[in-house]
């Protein structure tokens, strides 16, 4: 059985409270899960201000700034893709079949801000 664990948080306080996790701690935990053999993929995301929403309606691609705000829509799946830039990511997202009825939020993955030697090669 595969599980997707989605991290929800108030962006304003994610990094600023005394108990907020530091990137080193996040990296260490993901390494621990990886070593346990149960990791498929884990990433941190850039701020929601970098989000772009893509929809395909009647064969026409619609691109808008920001995360989707439809409260009637729920998370139904995810793709973790490696694209050259946002334009390529948008093209890939636009072809996801669910883009014809739902919205695809495209968010860049954030590189954890930890010294080089702590990261895996």
């Amino acid at each position, binding site marked *: 059985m595969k599980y997707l664990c989605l991290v929800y948080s108030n962006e304003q306080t994610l990094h600023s409270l005394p108990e907020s996790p530091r990137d080193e701690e996040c990296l260490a935990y993901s390494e621990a899960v990886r070593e346990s053999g149960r990791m498929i993929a884990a990433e941190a995301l*850039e*701020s929601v*201000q*970098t*989000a*772009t929403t893509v929809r395909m309606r009647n064969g*026409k*691609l619609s*691109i*808008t*700034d*920001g995360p989707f705000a439809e409260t009637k829509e729920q998370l139904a799946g995810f793709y973790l893709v490696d694209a*050259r*830039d*946002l*334009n390529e990511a*948008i*093209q890939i997202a636009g072809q996801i079949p669910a883009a014809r009825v739902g919205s695809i939020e*495209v*968010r*860049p993955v954030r590189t954890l801000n930890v010294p*080089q030697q702590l990261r895996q090669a």
Partner: protein
Amino acid sequence: MNPEQSGPLPAVVEAIYRAQSRRVLATLIRLLGDFDLAEEALQDAFIAAVEQWPRAGVPENPRAWLVSVGRFKAIDNLRRRARFNASLAQMAMALDDRLDAQQMDQDGLEDDRLRLIFTCCHPALTPDAQVALTLREVCDLTTEEIARAFLVTTPTVAQRIVRAKNKIRDARIPYEVPAAAELPERLEAVLRVVYLVFNEGYFASSGDALTRSELSNEAIRLGRLLVEQLPEPEAMGLLALMLLHESRRPARTTAQGEPVLLDEQDRGLWNRALIAEGEALVEQALRSRRFGPYSLQAAIAALHAEAPSAAATDWAQIVGLYDVLVRATGSPVVELNRAMAVAMCDGPDAGLTLVNALLARGELTDYHLAYSARADLSRRLGRLDEARAAYGKALELAQQGPDRQFLERRLRELSA
């Protein structure tokens, strides 16, 4: 030393800044891949020019010189800061490699301005940010000027620009003219921004008149740049539309700033040179057979421009063009304009029937010009009570001072 540039040096540098700084910036953004780094490099390059040109003379190709100095200054700056941050050192090295591999031919340099427009007008940025970023980066308007033109505060504009630049960097919005498959939709977004800038300068009547005509001129400059670099029919159509509107600027307001309707304008005041340029572009766009809404609107504007008076206008052809435009856009505002053309062609009765049907559909019930149209047609038919009621409703909805003055005057005339 270039013998043609023998004026006092600061003036030469200033002239080159005015003519070339945006092109140099566009190229530096491509080479450095970062807006802020490029802006800093542009400043450094011009500082170097002021220092070096008096001794060494103005270089043969100032633009290439500025780009070259700017990029090396940027690498120097990164190296200096790299002592404190290891990732900057890698960035400086990668940049050095990349720059060596890059050609700087004339064609490439011209494309950079187009790349910059497409990046600034990327649909992944909010529409407000697209406009602010285009005016700041492509047109070199200051943040204060943009704020004044759009009646928002300077910090608001500054924040929009900073957020947009951050998103371009963090989400990696590429610095390129889109591929052929994406071009129609992306060009649509660019044209929308240009037309929005123009309209802000032309139709909104609040704010300083000088700032506004400046804004329209910037939009026309952008339109020319697009047509020059990317001669697509709709780019021509938009430029034609802006030129034909602009040709009427001297006639469209009274000395007191009140709007003068098209049929009451002194056509002797229309700028014939702009009309001729606009008409030539419309013809070229229509001949392509790949035209869209901008070309159609420009074709309608051209028929007005050719007519010696409102009565002698080819209204039947205008109605025909509106038919196509309604089909292309599905816009109720276009339908309203069509109804007014029908009124000129077949009489106010026919026009009023269409306006009333539109309002009955409930689509334009918040739009003051729909009531103003109903009022005007009722007045022409002698139905004065209906006219008064509709002018009153239009006045309730109108925001702009001059529009209100005009409606109030009409109401007074009806009561007299």
